């Protein structure tokens, strides 16, 4: 009898070491929205916006209050942001500002796919088609591009593709529902059709809301009235100086100066898009719940970048203020604490190694991001000492210890800003010219230069023209920089 128990124990321990230790294979649902400010979520204190499903996610997971996209070379911030998320690499490590994801950069879904995961993608893909197919073995209602065009009826008639195994994706079809609904339809169908013993899945749902065009809204969601909208506290009719990017598409959607009436209307349209995408997000989560898979799924919710919508007199995201460059990021991990918030500094491209850690899969060699697992386990845990942010060849910033330093160079004209984010989260009081903080400003500038050098920045703050010549960097030039 004793021998038998011994044998059994030995046998079991042998099995364990030999690799029959069945780890839980959690699913991953990654919901990415487009141009959503972190301050436009009800659960984060915005009493005006209606976002019950996103609120639910916030209540269930760990929120990262200081998550950022690393920046962009060109004006379409979404392109590098998404490439960085997918590859786990920084802004100067993606190819052609994110337009192409080369094979040498193994994407997160691609890696999971090699590890037996069923990978599914719907919605926006701003990189090349081949990388979409390497990443996802299934997909539907796929949108290749940056935004739905105004002259093609915007979100109401999205130009979409069904999955094409040859990756040619020739002619898109015209979706007959609002974009968000089409993407949710595809996700719900995928999740509904899965069977009990299927492989674990990685589903990527990349909504195009609340990116513009915002001139049309679907029949569902919440309607906002401009006259009831509260202006943001840091609303300005005009940006106080030339930040080098005041004439880009995003900024000229409305004329200068932005009147209060214009911004109230803009906000009503903006919140309208947020409420509608919130409804669609709810559908997907409900499907997971009905399938009994919610308890076995890691849920990630984020936006690729934010949007100004009237703050600082800006409308777009081609700037380094909190509203534009900082993003909402929530991770719901079954078994971990709920409704917790971390202030640790992180980049969106840290998501990739974090998911790998959670699934006990080694990230690909091409990943340079840093895993947030220690922060998920202890929200007080420091993650990065500082973050550097970059826009084009005209704006750089350093975020550290709840202060932000921004420096601009527009044709040789340099402007500096210094914000105390703990007391002035809306970045209204520029302390750069305050002698009391001169020491801090100089220190931040020095550290920013170090970060730029470390990250192989093509700009040098010590040069008169940062990139060595005057004028704004063109799209073509930007694409050739890091190849």
């Amino acid at each position, binding site marked *: 009898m004793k021998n038998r128990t011994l044998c059994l124990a030995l046998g079991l321990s042998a099995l364990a070491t030999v690799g029959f230790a069945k780890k839980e294979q959690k699913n991953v649902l990654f919901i990415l929205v487009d141009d959503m400010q972190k301050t436009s979520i009800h659960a984060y204190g915005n009493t005006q916006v209606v976002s019950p499903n996103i609120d639910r996610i916030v209540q269930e997971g760990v929120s990262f209050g200081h998550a950022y996209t690393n920046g962009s070379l060109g004006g379409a911030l979404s392109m590098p942001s998404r490439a960085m998320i997918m590859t786990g690499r920084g802004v100067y490590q993606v190819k052609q500002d994110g337009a192409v994801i080369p094979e040498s950069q193994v994407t997160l879904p691609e890696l999971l796919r090699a590890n*037996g995961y069923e990978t599914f993608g719907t919605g926006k893909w701003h990189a090349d088609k081949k990388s979409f197919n390497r990443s996802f073995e299934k997909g539907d209602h796929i949108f290749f591009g940056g935004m739905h065009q105004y002259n093609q009826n915007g979100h109401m008639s999205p130009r979409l593709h069904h999955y094409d195994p040859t990756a040619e994706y020739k002619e898109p079809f015209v979706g007959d529902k609002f974009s968000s609904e089409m993407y949710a339809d595809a996700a719900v169908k995928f999740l509904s059709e899965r069977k009990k013993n299927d492989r674990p899945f990685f589903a990527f749902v990349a909504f195009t809301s609340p990116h513009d065009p915002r001139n049309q809204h679907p029949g569902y969601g919440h309607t906002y009235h401009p006259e009831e909208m509260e202006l943001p506290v840091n609303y300005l009719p005009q940006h106080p100086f030339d930040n080098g990017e005041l004439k880009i598409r995003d900024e000229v959607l409305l004329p200068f100066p932005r009147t209060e009436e214009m911004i109230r209307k803009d906000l009503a349209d903006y919140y309208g898009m947020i409420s509608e995408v919130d409804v669609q997000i709810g559908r997907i989560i409900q499907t997971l719940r009905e399938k009994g898979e919610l308890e076995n799924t890691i849920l990630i919710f984020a936006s690729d970048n934010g949007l100004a919508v009237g703050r600082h007199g800006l409308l777009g995201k081609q700037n380094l203020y909190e509203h534009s460059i900082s993003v909402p990021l929530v991770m719901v991990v079954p078994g971990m604490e709920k409704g917790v918030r971390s202030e640790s500094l992180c980049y969106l491209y840290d998501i990739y190694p974090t998911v790998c850690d959670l699934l006990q899969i080694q990230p690909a060699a091409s990943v340079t991001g840093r895993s947030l697992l220690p922060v998920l386990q202890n929200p007080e845990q420091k993650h990065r000492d500082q973050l550097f942010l970059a826009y084009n060849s005209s704006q750089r910033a350093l975020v550290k210890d709840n202060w932000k330093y921004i420096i601009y160079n527009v044709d040789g004209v340099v402007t500096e800003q210094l914000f105390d984010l703990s007391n002035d989260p809306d970045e209204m009081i520029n302390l750069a010219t305050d002698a009391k903080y001169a020491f801090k400003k100089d220190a931040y500038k020095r550290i920013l230069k170090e970060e730029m050098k470390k990250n192989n920045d093509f700009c040098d703050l010590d040069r008169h023209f940062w990139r060595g010549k005057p004028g704004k960097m063109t799209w073509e030039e930007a694409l050739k920089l890091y190849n």
Partner: protein
Amino acid sequence: MYRGSMENTKINRSLLFGCMGLLFAPSGLMEAASEEHPNLLVVMADQFRGDALGFRGKEAVKTPNLDQFAQEAVVLTQAVSGYPVSSPARGMFLSGAYPHENGVLTNCQSESAHQGVELRQDLTCWSDVLAQAGYATAYIGKWHLDKPYTPYVDCSNNKGEMAWNEWCPLERRHGFDYWVAYGTYDRHLRPLYWNKDSKRDEFYYVDQWGPEHEADLAIQYLDSIRSTGKPFAMMVSMNPPHTGYEQVPDRYKQEYTTLNVDSIANSLPSLMQSDEKYIQLFKRSVANYYACITGVDEQFGRIIQALKKNGQYDNTIVVFVSDHGDSMGMHNNIGKNIFYEEAMRVPFLISYGKQLTPRIDQDLLISLEDFCPTVLSLMGFQQEIPATVQTRDLSEQIRGNREKMPSSQLYMFYGAVNETGKNLTTGARGVRTLQYTYAIRYKDGVITEEHLYDRKTDPFQLNNIAGKHPELAKQLRTELKQRMEAVHDPALSVL
């Protein structure tokens, strides 16, 4: 100068003198590797699938050293082994001649030995050329090019129905001087070797994982050759991840204890349609297979490290390949020897210091057997490519030139070798293009199967469309015929 039994053969003597006459007066022998004539390091693994490289993102295997090497090398993602089984692949690799010319029609073992299947002694291989040119030459590991003869060597894999492992005498080593090698022997944790001076019965065992021992030897060799200053050509032929997957050190097995084996298996349609026993085989094998690969990767990394530490790296052409892939149950197949991607495609990475710009080449339809003329060309010995070479010099294309790109890769299989005279009328032939895989199987001179797969729309090769697209099949059969004609393939009569 190379001595030895080569002088015994008339053919070789004339070749030897011929070469000497062309280029080398005794004073012209090389003192050291130059930019014109670099060193060569070949590391060949066994049964290592082309997709099983971590940086390719296709299989869940970890190969940090090869990942790093890929940043410094030309990565040839289309590379295949044209006759994807051990001895035939190795025979072609060394000689650049096809089986009907080089003698290795199938694996060297006691049955095929009756048909004389082994590498022709008188054929000039790339190692012969380099030895004649004054290179220090070294061979470490699996060789598998000699026919076993009685009384068979007294080791475990010679005790079954067939005998496999045979000694390679001095005169059959094709110019390799330093020698620690064996025929074929799969006990990876306690490998067997003969060294340069060992007699046939003087083989010995080493209580160390084969690749690790072989890397130790390689590093010692690199250190010692450095002090002589001679140019060197070394081939290290590691056995893992060949079957015997479980025979791998625990520290590599630990890396895969949490591998999603079921999910990975379920994600491969080419496996899921196989018999249950093959699906189970895959599930039992894949974690250890990857463990072996991680081990081979680590040992490869050690050798590269030594090259770099010694300052030899920049002036050495480094090549990492495998003799064939591994079906592991996919397409109802175990092992190799078949025209599906998992069996045919092999890793093929080549670096040459700063002379070759690192890149991933997705278009070059290179075969393992093209190695001989290609490497001789890259090493500055284009004029010395033996007349018997039938494969292609693709050195220009490896350098990045897109002209004269090959239109296809040849696939071959010789069946029924153990029965006299039947090997030319039973077997398989095929061509692989960038989009299609086409193959025919024949028995006693009659074609029994025709296969055509469109890998663009059907990457797992599940749908044989030969019947549905006869025009396309005909086109590819013509391409096959042309390729076979060009190399005087005796099986041409079947077509």
